[in-house]
């Protein structure tokens, strides 16, 4: 099933929830909608499910508009953050519920068992939802959504209520099941790490519109806007000015130093730009096109790496370091190549300098 959203606009009273959104999801693809809370991603999902109607625009399933189709006939499977398992029904009854409304040659019992096996919950048919752990409830919710053979799977923050370890395990399982069933999936999450991990493509949303659509690699490495650069991954965003430009080679002034960068777009000397450099691209004490000396002002230990906060020549940057024997106050030399300094069209205000995570 292909899904196409065409120029969707949706208002709630005076609030603009979605503004002119267009998005294509191809058959069997998993697209993650990621963005901060209130950006409209859940509303978009509810429009696809049929619980809200757009004020403007069209939603197509395999090229046919579904705007007039009520939710129960859209053939979508839906999983909510807090599961919404029917508390007065057993696991079996929950999973079997959607089968009441579909005609199928397969016996209900067989289908339920098949799904419980798929999500690894065989034997829990008679339990009530209240007798299950959060992770088990989430698996039941997934099984219930998949039972009537939906053509589209909609996941609304499916893992946000779980703890970190379980979240990582379940997102892998969801991806595995999605691949096996080749079911077209929209996956809403506010967790960019989760989106990067599961998605074929990611739509980064902010304030009612889509900032960028691309593969995880593209949104991480080639952010289209400052918002995407800021939202996806951990990065150093520095505001500076273009000093000189020769072809695609740009010289920038950032803080008190000059840096070399590569840039495809038109930039004029004197223009403000935002430069992104990922923490893992900065090397310690190695020669590079761009270098600067600074002092470590904060250290976070993360097992195999250290996150260093380095103050150098008027700017503070985060550095991912494989070298572990470092102390606060140590002097270090930072280096990175011109091609790793990625320039994004600048927002107006200079960003705050990064600080140790709270």
């Amino acid at each position, binding site marked *: 099933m292909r899904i196409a959203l065409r120029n969707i606009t949706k208002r709630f009273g005076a609030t603009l929830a979605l503004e002119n959104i267009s998005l294509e999801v191809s058959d069997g693809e998993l697209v993650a909608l990621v963005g901060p809370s209130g950006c409209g991603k859940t509303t978009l999902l509810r429009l696809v*499910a*049929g*619980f809200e109607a757009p004020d403007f625009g069209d939603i197509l399933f395999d090229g046919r508009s579904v705007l007039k189709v*009520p*939710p*129960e*006939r*859209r053939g*979508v*499977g*839906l999983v*909510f*953050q*807090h599961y*919404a398992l*029917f*508390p*007065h029904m057993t696991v079996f009854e929950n999973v079997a*519920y*959607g089968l*009441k*409304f*579909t005609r199928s040659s397969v016996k209900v019992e067989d289908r339920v068992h098949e799904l419980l096996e798929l999500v690894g919950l065989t034997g829990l048919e008679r339990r009530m939802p209240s007798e299950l752990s959060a992770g088990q409830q989430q698996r039941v919710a997934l099984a*219930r*959504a998949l*039972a*009537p053979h939906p053509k589209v799977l*909609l996941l609304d923050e499916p893992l946000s*209520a779980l703890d970190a370890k379980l979240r990582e395990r379940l997102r892998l399982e969801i991806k595995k099941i999605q691949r096996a069933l080749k079911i077209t999936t929209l996956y809403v999450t506010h967790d960019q790490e989760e989106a990067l991990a599961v998605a074929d493509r990611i739509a980064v949303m902010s304030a009612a519109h889509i900032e960028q659509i691309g593969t995880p690699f593209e949104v991480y490495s080639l952010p289209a806007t400052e918002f995407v650069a800021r939202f996806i991954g951990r990065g150093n965003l520095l505001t500076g000015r273009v000093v000189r430009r020769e072809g695609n080679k740009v010289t920038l002034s950032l803080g008190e130093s000059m840096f070399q960068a590569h840039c495809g777009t038109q930039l004029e000397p004197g223009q403000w730009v935002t430069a992104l450099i990922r923490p893992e691209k900065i090397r310690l004490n190695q020669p590079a096109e761009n270098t600067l000396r600074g002092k470590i002002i904060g250290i976070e230990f993360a097992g195999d790496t250290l996150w260093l906060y380095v103050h150098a020549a008027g700017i503070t940057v985060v550095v991912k370091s494989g070298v572990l024997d470092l102390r606060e106050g140590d002097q270090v030399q930072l280096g990175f190549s011109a091609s790793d300094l990625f320039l994004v069209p600048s927002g107006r205000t200079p960003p705050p300098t990064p600080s140790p995570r709270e």
Partner: protein
Amino acid sequence: MGFLGRKGPPLAYNSPLPWPTHGRGVQGEGLVLLLPLLFLIVFFYAPLANLLGEGLTQDGSFSLEFIRKILTDDYFQYVILFTLWQAFLSTLASIALGLPLAYILTHYEFPLKRVVRSLTIVPFVLPAITVALGFALLFGRNGYLNQFLMHLLGLSEPPLPIMYSLAGIVLAHAFYNAPIITRTVHAAWERLDPRYEESARALGASRFYVFKDVTLPMILPGLLSGAALVFIFCFLSFPIVLSVGGGRFSTIEVEIYTRVVTRLDPQFLNYKIGAALALIGLTLSLGMTYIYLRLQGSFARQTEHLRPRPTLPLFAGIKDFLRPTKLLLWFYVLGSVLVFIGPILAIIADSFWEDTPTGGRWTLRWYAYIFTPNYEALLGDSPMQAILNSVSFGLGATAIAVPLGLILAYVIARLRWAGRRLFDTLLMAPLATSSIVVAFALLRAFNAPPMRLVGTATAVIIAHSVIIFPFVVRALVPILENLDQRLVEMARSLGASRWRALREIELPLVATGLIAGSIFAFALSLGEMSATLMLARPGLNTMPVAVYRFLSQHSLGAPSAMSVVMIVVSALAFLVLERLGEKALKL
């Protein structure tokens, strides 16, 4: 939920021990805590046991003779079955009247919605006898509705003989109890996360199936517990059956009242019969209370991450207005306005109206009459005295019930499950006991020295206290439960004594709830009629009793003026409660 329902979180991680076991407690704390129990034992449990004992003995030895007599007698069988039957019909009518409002409140947005929602507590503070009076004025043979219809249709007979009929009793009960249904169902519905219904729809269920499979099962516990409560209230109802039924219908309560109070009975035989009837009635109502509590338990499901239910405007243009479902809703709104507002408007109109041979005129004479101390043979006393009595009994009962209720609520709020159930049950007993039986028990227990209270104001005040006491406790428990005990611990660790912590931390935090609880208690006492009527002597009449006596003689005007006084007091109580916010009093 109604004030019978425990709201608020179950005992949470921060629930402290029953009372501080570390450090020194408040001096004499244990003794203070015994006071409410002592009060309940002396003025409720012991007299009740004594009374029930009377029904189970003959010539000083145990006997089931009176029970057998009642259960095999055709007339008494009829009375018991009629009591159950009218309660059943009244419950159905309350559901029919209350459910649509719950639906509207849950799904639609309209001006004054908050006020309408708060107005559903009015039946609790509106004296039942004023409802009976309003029904007589609106639906009686000479009532406004019948007069209007006769005039309109040119009939010679009143077309709607609602007064003095089973239909009248049922309708008046529905007026009184439908708001309970509305409250419980609305609470359950609003707490139902719409995502359950959306999940069902996404799975292919049509609106009908969503309602049948998901919505209904999930709001059903709320509906059933509300219905059980309404059934109990209607089963125990006295003023409405007596006045709206007009003496033509007898329920267990009415039967006890007439046997004990109005019949000459040199052999005390009617006392025996009354006691046996009380025992049977109490057994039935306790059974129903048990069912109610069980339903309450199954209802305690809370959704933590509730998404608010989307609401639609009730009025959304003429086209929407003319849709069949909307028309039906508007029809309901109109009907409920007639049933809910009509009787009250009828009372207010009547209190300013005087019939004259040439028609009638507006007048203030009824107010002048009730506020001057002139002897009235119907009361054996002056109407003015009834007003004064109502106020002083109300103040007295509030002064007893609120402090005692506060102490008991404080204990209950800090108890863990087992102890809590015990106390809950102890408290439910006075709730499940009708006011008639409470007064009857006091009448039998304190009619001889050394405690000869019958015929004194003290007896009435004590009866009122016993009756309103459980309501006060129920209203205060959630407030005290929400009081974070760590605040007291913090105050004490900072050097405050237990008394200071009580005075400076706990009391200020529950002050609003206490004020609301006191006003609620006063309003309940003011409206109490049944027990007062049992215990009343000339000089001890209250406003509701006076209204009843006037009404039973078909004398209107004066009781209307008096009812307006009560309605004004109820309205003031309502306004204060509303002002303090429903949070202050978890009704």
